[in-house]
């Protein structure tokens, strides 16, 4: 998620009505294969769920490989990012 999120940053997320989620929102999801992820919404599909992507496209797992994230997997929408202090 570089450069918008860096290693060590804190993110604050909260439960968000699924129907209010939109493209470009950053969400926290629980992926069965990949664990707890913080990613940006690429698209919202009522039937399949969310397609997500990292901001650092060159090095991120592609949306295709991540697969659809269902409504139940969404832990919340990120509402605040607190950047780590640079050493």
């Amino acid at each position: 998620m570089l450069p918008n999120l860096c290693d060590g940053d804190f993110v604050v997320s909260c439960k968000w009505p699924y129907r209010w989620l939109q493209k470009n929102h950053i969400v926290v999801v629980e992926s069965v294969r990949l664990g707890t992820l913080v990613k940006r919404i690429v698209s919202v599909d009522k039937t399949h769920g969310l397609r997500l992507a990292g901001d650092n496209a060159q090095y991120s797992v592609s949306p295709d490989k991540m697969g659809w994230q269902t409504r139940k997997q969404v832990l919340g929408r990120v509402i605040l990012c607190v950047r780590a202090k640079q050493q």
Partner: protein
Amino acid sequence: MLYTMLKTINSISPFSNASAHCDIPCKIYDPSTAQIAALSVIRLTDLLLEIGEKETLTLADHAQISRLTTEKESHAEKVKHEVRVMWGDYFKQPQFDVFPDTSELVHKIMLAGSGCKQHVNREKGESLLALVNEFATRFWETKGVKTKTVTCPYPPSLNVVYPDL
């Protein structure tokens, strides 16, 4: 100040971690770990087969079979893991454009790795190594690095693809 406060709270009562997955573009990918793991599978298979040739097995032999089987399982899984990570994290569209059937090759490696776990069969190990060598060849070619095939200098003394650096 907010960061410092959160960091302090985190040290006392840790927050959940969320991964952005490959946040750190370390660019360190090398198929050699998968190749060494495949060689280990073959070597461990050979050692199991040697014990299998004995007419009678001692308690020590049974214990050794258990250890060898555990290690064979572990190394076969390592092959699958290392290849999966490189396929998922390194191979992107430009690489798939050059080698469009890479996903099929990776699937074959996954099946071959499982076959090595399920059986004590040298041929299956050799097939696994051959597939991983093919994967390694493609990987280095996508980086513009020539490769050479050399017999590894330790048992099972089989051909391995190395980068010609």
